[in-house]
């Protein structure tokens, strides 16, 4: 069977000798008694928003790599933004240097 990675089983308890298996009749009687009690427990309803919360957790933990909602200006690489700003500043500087008369009083 495939081993589910990501969660390691808890450390095993200290080994105690296994009791001998019960006789089938004895086991069946105990099981039938218990089943009638456990059937009264009913079913438990899972939270209605579980299928929305889990993808949100995955998106948050993967920092948007999985299930990311692409919004405008979301996940813009900083390298490109800083490069763009440097080029803009250099252009502005060049314009100011080449046309001093326009901007001087």
């Amino acid at each position, binding site marked *: 069977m495939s081993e589910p990675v990501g969660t390691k089983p808890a450390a095993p308890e200290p080994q105690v000798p296994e009791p001998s298996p019960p006789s089938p009749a004895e086991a069946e009687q105990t099981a039938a008694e218990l089943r009638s009690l456990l059937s*009264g427990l009913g079913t438990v309803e899972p939270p209605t928003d579980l299928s929305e919360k889990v993808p949100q957790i995955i998106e948050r933990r993967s920092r948007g790599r999985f299930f990311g909602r692409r919004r405008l200006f979301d996940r813009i690489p900083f390298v490109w933004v800083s490069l763009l700003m440097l080029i803009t500043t250099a252009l502005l500087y060049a314009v100011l240097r080449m046309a001093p008369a326009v901007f001087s009083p």
Partner: protein
Amino acid sequence: MDLRDEGELIRRLQQHDEKAFQKCVKLYQAKVYGLVFRMLGSQAEAEDVSQEVFVTVFKSIDSFRGDSKFSTWLYRIAANHCKNRIKYLKRRAHKQTGELDDAAERELLGSAHSTLGQKQASPVEALEGQQLGHIVQRAITKLDEEHRLLLVLRDVEELSYEEIMQVTGLAEGTVKSRLHRARLVLKEEIARHTK
């Protein structure tokens, strides 16, 4: 869900398809939450652990080789998470060992009420049913984690012995003898509270 649909769902999960993942959560959330809630006896813990189970499914879906049923693999992840959480809660000396949280109690009472409601129970019967449901869940959370897991898998979730062997990794004889022991302990515990 037939095997072909399950295979297709797994293939899409392995491609990290969000819609497939949501479908997977919707399909299996009742099974996972049911197991986790019965194991932990707390609604808040059950919700948190159920979320972690599905996050683990997402992270480890590539390791699923398909040599067992997907639901069995999922139960195995849920069982491991439950055991770890029980150990963590024990370490924190959480009150959970004996007491159910308020929300869990409301849910238990609600489920017992609805079960009995289908039979047009009298108020006295309904109250008895609620109290019994409460006592049974309390008794389950008092069992040790291995006994609790076997009992919930077999008698609440109604898995076959073959599936339980795959979930727990135990041999058939061990499953049967431990399950019998768990039932006896649970029966004694319930009898102690109903006297």
